[in-house]
């Protein structure tokens, strides 16, 4: 009944036999032990599970592991390169864009796609871009500032 899948996560290819109903988020968390991707809901609302799959931000609680077969995935664990924080990670740290940190990985991955598509967003565009990501701690104030920080820093590069 199990199906073989091959998935490249953060540059490393993994092969596993999985139950067809296994969600990608549980594959990442429980099989690959990449627990930075979180599960905050069961209705695809919170965005805590946002990852980049084939260059698209997706909520991986709505993707089956078997659907990810052959795909390229980036999770929060793979974002910093050679110990160097990504400007978005830096922005969240500098601007205090997190408190409990639970929504943070999803926020950061969502911001990554947002800034790729729109490198100079307005505050309102950032707020709209976070429509699918919930944070219960920060009131979003500093998250918006964190993403602006990253946008500026990335523009300089």
């Amino acid at each position, binding site marked *: 009944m199990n199906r073989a899948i091959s998935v490249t996560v953060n540059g490393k290819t993994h092969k596993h036999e999985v*139950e067809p*109903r296994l969600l990608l988020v*549980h594959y990442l*968390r429980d099989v690959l*032990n*990449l*627990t*930075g*991707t*979180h*599960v*905050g*809901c*069961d*209705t695809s*609302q*919170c965005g*805590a599970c946002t990852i980049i799959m084939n260059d698209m931000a997706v909520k991986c609680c709505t993707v089956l592991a078997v659907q990810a077969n052959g795909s390229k995935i980036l*999770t*929060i*664990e793979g*974002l*910093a390169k050679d110990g160097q*924080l990504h400007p978005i*990670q830096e922005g*969240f*740290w*500098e601007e*205090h864009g*997190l*408190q*409990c*940190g*639970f*929504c*943070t*990985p999803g926020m*950061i991955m969502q911001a990554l796609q947002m800034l790729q598509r729109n490198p100079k967003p307005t*505050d*309102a565009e*950032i*707020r*709209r871009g*976070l*429509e699918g*990501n*919930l*944070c*219960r*701690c*920060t*009131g*979003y*104030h*500093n*998250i*918006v500032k964190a993403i602006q920080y990253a946008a500026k820093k990335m523009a300089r590069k």
Partner: protein
Amino acid sequence: MATGTKLFGSSIKRREDPRFITGKGIYTDDVKLPGTTCAAFVRSPHAHARIKSVNVVKTKASPGVVAVFTGRDLANAKVGGLPCGWLLPGIKLPPHPALAVETVRYVGDAVAVVIAESAFAAKDAAEKVEIQYEVLPAVTDGLSAVQQGAPTLHSDAPGNICFTWSIGDKEKTESAFRGATIVKQHLVNQRLIPNAMEPRASLASYEPATGDLTLWVTSQNPHVHRLLMAAFVLGIPEHKMRVIAPDVGGGFGSKIFVYPEEVVVAWASRQLGRPVKWTAERRESYMTDAHGRDHITDAEMGFSKDGKIIGLRVKTHANLGAYLSTFAPLIPTYLYGTLLSGLYAIPAIYCEVVGVFTNTTPVDAYRGAGRPEATYLLERLMDLGARARKTDPAEIRRKNFIPADKFPYQTPVALAYDSGNYGPALDRALSMADYRKLRAEQERLRREGRYLGIGFSTYIEACGPAPSQVAGALGAQAGLWESAHVRVHPTGKVTIYTGSHSHGQGHETTFTQIGADELGIPWEDVELVHGDTAAIPFGMGSYGSRSTAVGGSAIVMSLNKIKEKGRKIAAHLLEAAEGDVVFEDGKYFVRGAPSRAKTFQEVALMAYLAHNMPPGLEPGLEATSFFDPPNFTFPFGTHIAVAEVDPETGQVKIVRYVAVDDVGRVVNPMIVDGMVHGGIAQGVAQALWESGVYDSSGQLLTGTMMDYALPKADQLPFFETDRTETPSPVNPLGVKGAGETGTIASTAAVANAVMDALAPLGVSHIDLPLTPDRIWRAIRDAKKGGRA
């Protein structure tokens, strides 16, 4: 005192963030143990029913099942019910079994647990549990439940009344009302569902060889969890149980309490000799995390001719849900009734509260806990008073502030405010908002048919609980102090152990700022350990904005002991009298001779080498302290919300939000601002969107994130914040607490802004949340009323 040093008061970046922004935080569900089994709970779909039978034959035969337990199994094993940690005179304490035995009393009440090799296997098998129910009539709101003929939840609580409690002087209030201008309002403070982003989880591991039980749990207070579970529920020796709360993804109160799931998981692990894990699905969080608020209130405020408040009368029905959650009785009583003086001089107050059982999820502390309810009530009445008297809402407030020269001030509802100066915060907020200009703008827009409103909330909060003696006299089943242990290592590096536990507040940063400052050592040399009962002396945890005021102060006490012992060692090394040795910037030296100094590190090393110690002094350098403050702390402030209402759609837009808070001295302003932002967002959401709704049969209609309206980024503005600083006299840091101010103040500010906007349309009050639908109806009804 830490004045004049460099880290106190500086917005240094948080130490915990690198792990969170790289996905390396460890939350309870991230903890993996080999051989772990998974638990799935079978829950009642009925709000009220008798359990006729539970059949688990097919469940047990389901693939991968390790064990199935029902309420009977737990009862037979003498597992105790969930305890209530706060008692009131005459309170009814019906039993609350972790798994229901005879009766289920709310949708989500757990009936059985299936433990299996995987989460899938457990869930598959849970579907096969066959339960026969005899459905009973249900009641869901606090007023209906006390009416004659309402279904009774617990035979030992007739009329569903858990307690009747009052505070203040009834006669005095009655007589004050004679001749007063009275404003009256019926107010519903709706039920809220906490929604910490990390769902509750627990993982228990029992080691049969040693008899040690370890529980990882999403907890704001691991020691309280251990005490209540070991002593009152599981009946195991407290020293054989270790509770670890790793990174906690938000709590807002909901992770204070002992819940059935962690009890069952811990017990089952002991039965099975294997680790057992449970992580809530969000829909389980909605059904089973303790909810907040849910008051139905009639309130009256009397004003004298010159606009002074002369009396306040309040009657509240507080919905407690189906069972008493851990601190449920405290919230609508001592955290609510005692706050009804606000920051106003009110000569006579009387408040009566009826605590009521209903067929709903238990209700307990949720961010603010009782104080937002009190503030909302007072601030709505102040606005209604201002409107009735045609006075400016800012001025009626100022007129009634307790004057700055009247402190300490004894309110008629038990609290004694130690310090306060309320005018400056109001002035600052008015000037930040540019109040006059705002009013002019409002006028201009009104002429264009647009409806802008300006809403005030001048609030006070009692936080930092403590003191223990008072808490004990008021019914607490625990003390409310905090512990701190400071260990200096031979190299002069320092570990601080605190009984407080962060669930987002950044203690690893703030508390080490305090430590580094006091000892004059680099911040990097100080480490914080929290959230593990095996490492830390008994502590009370984090809630009620108490961590820095109580926990931080305990740290200061221990640091002082360290410094004193260090002084003895240094004096000995410097061959000087102890009284002549001073400690500055991490160095001990004889007063006036700083060049010949012993560094803190040298002294620490000597404490452990012990080659050359003052006679009679023990080696080592560590200290434990327990801080029990003499009083609560009293943060206060003024919040101003500016909102525009579209009368065609009833849509509200928050245009601006100004918050001026006085939380005493501030260790890390960046962190405090962050908490204020988050708090405001939650309070705004109560005003405009959030509401936990049951249908008449007791089904939770807002059981997912699709149905329960959590605030999103594009619904909120940036918040304009500032502070005044009145140090608290009750702790050595002068801090007060900032975790709840935003939530306490903002609901009323937004509600008042919306009512101010709607004033020209003849609307004076709408119950929360102020959804477009409700606003639109209120406008329509007011128009109809106007015509008739």
